[in-house]
């Protein structure tokens, strides 16, 4: 004789609980609408703030009846974290929304496939484009990656694996470096190289300025992921008669691979939108320049900067569209790095 057992979730919310949750949200909504209408407060943010305040109070009252003051404190902590999460999401989505809604209008084929050689920022939309700036930005990012990823990862390996005598000092310098304002990085390259050597502004020098900003980010992230590699693995390698170099190269670094890719991505995210250091080291340019070592270079951040300064509706439109392009370029790079990183892991 068998009876079929129906799976239930005794811990799930009962209809009564759900009703109370709905009621407190509804009451809070109502309160926020009433308060905003009855007082001089205006705008979406006002609704949002009043809603959360009302919800804190109303829901706490319901909880107090059900599970006492301990439950209220628990609920308040949960609401605060939720509130924090919502705030961050609002900031991110409003930035995305502003960029997409304003930038999309200026996106057309010419914008993505032409340069500004025969057009100006003040021409009607549809004339000229920013392909030169896309290529310039990609070139700068590539130069910065080529220099700072090996540098950052090697520094991180020194700090986590070798732990040599200079580790404390290097750690301190890396931390100090991550606080360097970006304009200082540009000024440094300008003062140290452009004023003192025959070299003039070029993508390479811009890449060097960006490297100063990128190295600390890559180093610190790489250091954290390398520290996560269990020391068992290092011991296992060494116990088989490997030198430390072989253990690091064949065991530790592969184990931390996806984390090291993340370190690179975070580094790129740090520098992709930098404008100030580029003004000193790369200049601005309206045409293609494929020589990384000579001549000014167009970049997306400088296009944005000039467009916003231009002030006419056309130039501001171009700036917004360029921001959108930068976002998409960076996004594509991230997705590509992630897929490459995980694909070769699986085999």
């Amino acid at each position: 004789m068998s009876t079929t057992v129906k799976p239930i979730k005794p811990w799930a919310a009962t209809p009564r609980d759900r009703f109370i949750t709905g009621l407190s949200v509804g009451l809070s909504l109502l309160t926020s609408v009433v308060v905003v209408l009855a007082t001089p407060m205006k705008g979406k943010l006002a609704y949002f703030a009043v809603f959360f305040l009302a919800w804190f109070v109303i829901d706490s009252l319901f909880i107090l009846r059900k599970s006492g003051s301990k439950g209220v404190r628990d609920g308040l902590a949960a609401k605060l974290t939720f509130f924090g999460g919502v705030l961050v999401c609002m900031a991110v989505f409003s930035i995305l929304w502003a960029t997409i809604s304003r930038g999309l209008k200026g996106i057309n084929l010419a914008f993505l496939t032409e340069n500004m050689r025969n057009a100006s920022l003040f021409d009607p939309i549809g004339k000229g484009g920013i392909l030169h700036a896309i290529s310039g930005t990609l070139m700068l990012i590539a130069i910065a990656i080529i220099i700072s990823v090996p540098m950052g990862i090697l520094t991180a390996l020194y700090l986590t694996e070798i732990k040599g005598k200079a580790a404390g000092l290097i750690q301190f310098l890396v931390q100090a470096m991550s606080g360097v304002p970006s304009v200082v990085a540009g000024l440094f390259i300008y003062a140290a190289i452009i004023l003192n050597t025959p070299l003039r502004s070029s993508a390479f020098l811009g890449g060097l300025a960006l490297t100063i900003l990128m190295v600390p980010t890559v180093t610190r992230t790489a250091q954290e992921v390398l520290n996560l590699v269990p020391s068992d693995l290092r011991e296992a390698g060494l116990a088989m008669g490997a030198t430390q170099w072989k253990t690091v190269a064949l065991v530790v670094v592969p184990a931390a691979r996806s984390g090291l890719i993340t370190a690179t991505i975070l580094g790129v995210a740090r520098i992709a939108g930098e404008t100030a250091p580029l003004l000193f080291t790369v200049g601005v340019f309206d045409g293609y320049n494929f020589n990384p070592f000579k001549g000014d270079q167009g970049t997306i951040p400088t296009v944005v900067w000039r467009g916003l300064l231009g002030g006419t509706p056309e130039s501001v439109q171009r700036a917004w569209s360029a921001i959108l392009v930068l976002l998409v370029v960076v996004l594509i790079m991230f997705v590509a790095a992630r897929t490459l990183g995980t694909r070769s892991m699986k085999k």
Partner: protein
Amino acid sequence: MNNSGTDSINQNGTHMSEEQNTTPSSLSDVAARRAEAKTAGGTVPLGTGLEARGVHAWFDKHHALEDVSLDFSAGTVTALIGPSGCGKSTFIRTLNRMHEFIPHTSMAGQVLLDGKDIYEPGIDVTKIRLQIGMVFQKPNPFPSMTIGENVLSGLKLAQLKADNQDQLLEECLTRAGLWNEVKDRLGAHAGGLSGGQQQRLCIARALAVKPKVLLMDEPCSALDPGSTLRIEETISQLSKTMTIVIVTHNMQQAARVSDYTAFFLSDGGPGQMIEVGPTNEIFSRPRDERTENYVTGRFG
């Protein structure tokens, strides 16, 4: 354990796979006979084994291990038993120079491999570790490598050459008792194996560089009884061709797999070796009262 029952090593150092006229009545008898066979003659196969002479170990100022002298003759299995914190693991790590990886440690004494001190200045540490392999408490296969790559990783890590890698792969996995379970998925990642399989994979990995001595630091403490049994079978197989030192908290395991047993104890001060002898003696008639109390489960 069938193998150890029918296998022994004669005085000329050759293996005899069949020993006639004796039917082992109990495990300790077997161990005793094996011990006699190995120590009686003086000539020992497989080199002369590993000897610790007056080994001390410190962590910073803390004296963790005091004056341990212990011989591991070639081809024997020696179990190190004792309560936690008595210095067994510290001792085993001084035997292949893994002790020095922990910052601020120091040691004293000699460890002789085939008569040569492994702590002698100028000696190549990587060569020592190549000859004295180690299996750790927690299975630690390399996560970024496949099963096959894990086994052969020692070749790359220690920069050795192997003529026939496929054959070596099969041989090591067979000796570790894992071949039949993984032969169809050598290209899969090692993380998908069960804990017991991972530990046998680690044993196979240690075997691939052909060590003379294998140190095992509580190799079964994280495993279920079935996997433990498999690993014990593996140990008795391996003991034909190498010297094995195993740290264990499981006294039945010590009795099952080892020829000799050494009992370690710390009375609050540094850990010391209280007593060593053939396993059956340690478990049946120990000389020291503390050993007797420990093996009969009165403390520890």
